[in-house]
């Protein structure tokens, strides 16, 4: 019995993606059914989702999604691709070669738009020694580049884009998916990690040139293991900058988390309490860098220092489970 997407083989992956049954796979805590007849999507799914567990027919599906060509003349003249959730198309179509990026952006939208069982931050999250490093930042700050560099240097990927905070446990929930890099970052990480395998480079997207690489197998295999928030670091890449890791007060850190939260309003006072507890237990910094090697060494050193976080029990959170 096959247990991962990769065990299916490319032909069967294509067949399932084309069928009504769809390709059912688990990403982090979420069940997905993906359908697409597009070869570019099938190729990328085969290359980048090979390590993910398959779901059985009766398993719960959180996101029933697809990517297809819209009907009409555009199918033949300047073809486009469209994302569907539950059979509906919530976005305008994109140029025809952007099928896989659209699938990834659509799945992100599903998570931050609907999964309010978590307080969700626009942040990369990595783990080392059971402790989570949260990198909240908007696009263009160097967050994804830094995240990619760290996950090849001793850190486990929880997410390169969305931090899922469990309001019950206070932990960061893992949802590792293919990592998206843009523009110069693709070359930078390609030079840093010699054996990295990118999917197709897609040019002229709204974010520029985009390429994905697969989440490490160890991260996918450990996706059921959450991590306690321990460090919150606001990264900023600045050309030519000397490395600066400066303590940031907790009040301002909390405000940064609020600014980078997708569904803080949904939570109200509970969200305020949750973020307060997260910053209380975390060491908080601003971080400016230009050299990835220096950044990797800095975070390695940071991971060996005890955070100023507090025992989870003192915050009213359970350490079990």
């Amino acid at each position: 019995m096959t247990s991962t997407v990769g065990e299916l083989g490319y032909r069967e992956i294509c067949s399932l993606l084309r069928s009504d049954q769809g390709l059912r796979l688990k990403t982090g805590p979420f069940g997905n059914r993906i359908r697409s007849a597009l070869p570019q999507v099938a190729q990328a799914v085969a290359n980048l989702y090979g390590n993910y567990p398959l779901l059985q027919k009766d398993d719960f599906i959180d996101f029933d999604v697809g990517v297809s060509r819209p009907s009409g003349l555009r199918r033949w003249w300047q073809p486009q691709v469209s994302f569907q959730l539950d059979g509906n198309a919530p976005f305008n179509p994109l140029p025809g070669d952007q099928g896989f990026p659209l699938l990834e952006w659509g799945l992100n939208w599903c998570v931050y738009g609907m999964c309010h069982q978590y307080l969700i931050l626009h942040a990369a999250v990595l783990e080392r020694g059971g402790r989570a490093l949260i990198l909240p930042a908007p696009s263009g700050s160097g967050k994804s580049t830094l995240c990619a560099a760290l996950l090849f240097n001793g850190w486990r990927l929880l997410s390169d884009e969305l931090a899922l905070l469990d309001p019950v446990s206070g932990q960061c929930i893992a949802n590792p998916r293919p990592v998206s890099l843009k523009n110069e970052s693709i070359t930078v990480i390609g030079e840093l990690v010699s054996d990295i395998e990118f999917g197709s480079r897609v040019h002229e997207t709204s974010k520029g040139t985009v390429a994905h690489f697969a989440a490490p197998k160890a991260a996918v295999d450990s996706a059921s293991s959450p991590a306690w928030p321990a460090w919150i670091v606001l990264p900023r890449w600045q050309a030519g900058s000397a490395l600066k890791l400066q303590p940031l007060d907790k009040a301002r850190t909390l405000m940064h988390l609020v600014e980078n939260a997708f569904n803080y309003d949904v939570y109200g006072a509970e969200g305020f309490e949750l973020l307060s507890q997260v910053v209380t237990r975390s060491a908080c910094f601003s971080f400016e860098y230009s050299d990835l090697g220096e950044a990797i060494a800095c975070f390695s050193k940071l991971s060996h220092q005890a955070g100023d976080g507090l025992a989870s029990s003192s915050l009213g959170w359970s350490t079990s489970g």
Partner: protein
Amino acid sequence: MGEVIHSLNDSAVFTTAAGLLIKQWPGEDTGVVFTTAERKTHLISPLAATILELSRSGNSVSGLLAQWTEPDAPTAQHAGQQVLFEDEYSSEEHSRNTLSEAVQGLIQAGLLRRLG
């Protein structure tokens, strides 16, 4: 006005007032406040944080206000006013109300930055 509760929860100071959740961490010059009515989060200015810190450290609000209003050489007339002032704010409930009002006033005066 509602109740004001000061409690230490490890390193964070949690203070709640009527419609406000206020948090300040020791050694920091600012804090944060969540207004339950608006469901907004604000960064508290150093001035507001000073009021909270003084209140937390045991200085009564009435005492604080009295310090600020005390002249260098009190006149007899002012001494009488001072008594009235202290009488007016003698109860702990009044002190709590004053702090809560002060914080809300700081929000309305724009001393708290609205972000959330």
